[in-house]
């Protein structure tokens, strides 16, 4: 045995070397190919244009990570309640075999338990608004944005006659913004009236009549849809401000139909959320936790280089 020990050691060493080389070669081959896991993006609402900046941010991250760019899923089935429709779309994405999901939740309460359960099998990151459950959420500081708006009203001298448009607060972000605004408004001694909006069309006509009757000095809308609504009222002489990020909101701002917008950087939101999701899917290293910024934009500064780069996506 001793006589053959040298040969055995040599053969073992040669075999180990060949094995290691084969493994290393296989690992190093085709490094740039996409990993084969896809992402799904399910958002609330039916206006794709509303999510343009978010989509661009997701696209940027996917390019960097060599991932397939996902198609945003918006509401299609009008027969179902919005939350049920969104849940169904989420299930569809999971069934289609996506490796992870970005979800802009339309109804935090209704989707919380279901999403918490689904997240056990499918990595998930919530954007813009959370559910109050266990899932990671990325978005601007909603309470801070609400407080900031209240502050701006106070700075502009609008201390009374303020109408606060309140939609059905199904999203947690809306609730937090409302909380932030109302607490700061109370602190600053702002007097405001809350108007509850029950639905899109009825809300529009009803609201217009309300505005005509009440003659407010300022109208505050804490969500994108309600801000678009407020901006399209065409009520003159009223300081309209709110929180929004869609192209329509910016357009209304440009036309002078909205006076001030608290703009959440949804491009950064999409980008960072994708990195976070990719880290959960083990497709990227763990991303540093960075908050999403927001900025107050008025018509005067809309076309300054700093602001226009933020609010106008470079798409043709």
């Amino acid at each position, binding site marked *: 045995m001793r006589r053959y020990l*040298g040969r055995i050691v*040599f053969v073992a*060493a*040669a075999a180990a*070397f060949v094995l290691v*080389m084969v493994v*290393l*070669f296989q690992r*190093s*081959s085709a*490094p*740039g190919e996409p990993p084969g896991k896809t992402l799904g993006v399910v958002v609330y609402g039916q206006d794709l244009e509303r999510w343009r900046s978010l989509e*661009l*941010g997701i696209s*940027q991250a996917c390019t960097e990570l060599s991932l397939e760019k996902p198609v945003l899923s918006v509401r299609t089935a009008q027969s179902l309640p919005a939350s049920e429709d969104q849940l169904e779309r989420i299930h569809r994405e999971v069934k289609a075999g996506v490796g992870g999901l970005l979800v802009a939740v339309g109804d935090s309460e209704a989707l919380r338990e279901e999403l918490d359960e689904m997240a056990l099998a499918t990595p998930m990151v919530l954007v813009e608004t959370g559910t109050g459950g266990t899932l990671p959420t990325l978005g601007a500081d909603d309470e801070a944005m609400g407080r900031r708006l209240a502050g701006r009203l106070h700075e502009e001298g609008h201390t009374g006659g303020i109408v606060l448009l309140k939609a059905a607060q199904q999203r947690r972000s809306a609730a937090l913004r409302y909380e932030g605004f109302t607490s700061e408004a109370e602190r600053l001694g702002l007097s405001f009236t809350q108007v509850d909006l029950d639905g899109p069309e009825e809300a529009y006509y009803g609201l217009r009549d309300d505005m005509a009757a009440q003659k407010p000095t300022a109208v505050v809308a804490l969500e994108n849809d309600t801000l678009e609504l407020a901006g399209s009222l065409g009520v003159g002489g009223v300081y309209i401000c709110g929180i929004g990020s869609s*192209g*329509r909101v*910016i*357009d209304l701002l*440009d036309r002078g139909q909205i006076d001030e917008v608290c703009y959440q*950087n949804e*491009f*950064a939101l999409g*980008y*960072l959320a994708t990195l976070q999701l990719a880290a959960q899917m083990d497709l990227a290293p763990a991303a540093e936790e*960075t908050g999403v*910024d927001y900025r107050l934009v008025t018509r005067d500064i*809309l*076309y300054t*280089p*700093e602001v*226009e*780069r*933020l609010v*106008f*996506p*470079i798409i*043709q």
Partner: protein
Amino acid sequence: MKQVRLLLDKVRRQYRRQSIQVLISLTFTLAAVVCLVAMALILYAQFTSSLRSTILKENQQLVSQIALNVESYTRNMRGVSDSVYYSVIKNADLDTDAIDSQMELLYEAHKDSLVSVACYTEGGELVASAPLSVGKPGLDVTAQDWFTKAQDKIENNHFSTPHVQNLFEDQSGRHRWVVSLSRMVELSRGGAVAPGVLLVDVSYSGLERIFTEGQGGGEGYVYLIDKNGEIIYHPKQRLIYSGLVAENNLTAASYADGIHEETFEGVGRQIVVKDTGYTGWRIICVIPNSEFSVTLGQMPLLVVAIVGFAILLIVLVNSQISSLVARPIKRLDRSVRALEAGQLDAEITIGGSHEIEHLGRTIQSTVDQMRSLMDDVVREQEQKRKSEFDALQAQINPHFLYNTLDSIVWMIESEEYKEAISMVTALASLFRISLSKGRDVISIGTELQHAGYYLHIQNIRYKNKFRVETDIDPAIEDLTTIKLIIQPLLENAIYHAMELMDGDGVITVRGRLAEDGVYIEVADNGLGMTEAMAASLLAAPAEPPPGEGRKKGSGIGLRNVHQRIRLYYGAPYGLRVDSELDVGTTVTIHLPGPPAEASEGGTP
């Protein structure tokens, strides 16, 4: 340093302890591996350097191509601006000529890349534009960058950085990113010329497309800045604007055309810079150093694999060669070890290179000689023993004993007690000296005593038929000799010479010390013998010479004594027989002289 020396010493000691096969294998393998690795490293370094140069060159070409495309882009813009100015505005009187439709036509011709064309008065009033004709209400264009820069640089065209067009009332709600080319123009109104500003807005997507199509794969990228370092295009510009990533654009603005090396945020990278003509924009190509490793791809692994495989092959070949060389040496070594262990019949392996073969043959020859010598020694020892045994046997000659005992009986029966006692005493003394307690070597004096006892017995038996004369040098009595050498000579003399004598036989025993040794002569005045007979007594075997019969007696006495003396003391010593017919015979014993130590028990 001391520890290094100790380590080297240890290594050297270990090295010396190894077998020749291990030494050859290890040394050649080490040398080959070192050369192989050095060569691989040098070639790899050359290759990577060459690859690096190639990559940089390729990127330079890419940047040059992009520069050409950018120049073409800006040239087109200038072309459109020149067309609008020289074909439409310059020759028109704005009071009478409507230039909108011409502008519209020009716009349509270039609408793939053009966003709008507009002409303003010095005060910012819109003169004409295409495709949109209504300016944004309340907008003061004179405050916009393109307007002020055009007024600053009267003789030149001014290219803006990309921005969102903010000029017209656009019901579609689109906000277009454009690059503006503005210039001062002369507007004619009713013969009077007044300055104005011509603005050509080109879609930014055209510029963006040049760069997105020009981006190679991998981690490197290309971006565009103006001469102040402001980003015009960057593949991650929105991330930069959002503050999520950073770029070293401001530093890049200071680089000259060519290749530069920099470290930005801990990442080393190569920068290729190229200025474009007219605009002063700079194209910056960034190649992270890691890109070179990625481009190498599997090359490092391949090199490692080849070197590893070569090392394995070298190890295999060297071990085979060293085994081939060392095997005959090992076999020879095993044979020598067997010899060392006493196996004289071990086979000496002869093989391998001619030096090893020669070594084997030499060892074989030495072993053969050794065996032969040992056989000789064994033979000598056997002869000695045989001779001693023969001598003893001769001494204990049954005839001598029977006759002597007979004589003693006769004497006792004849009541010659005195003679009987004398004979018995002499016989006892004779045998006592013969045995000598097992000693081989006794003093000459004792040997002479022994001879004396023998003669005494024989004299009685032969009724004084002869007489004995002795002449012994006392100096020799204490010297040593092997025993039982004189008595056989006396026996021969008595049996062959004295038997036929009638009272006048004389046996003379003489002993003297000479320079070359001790001489003891036993002479008789008997019948003597021929020279041939005398010569044959010592040389020939037991058979007498032809024509002469066997004499009485043991016949082996003289030869036995002669052999024993030569065996013990060597060839120069022994017996010499001198004889003359009818005169007598003298047998001379030659022994070594002093200093000779008496060997008390055992052979000298």
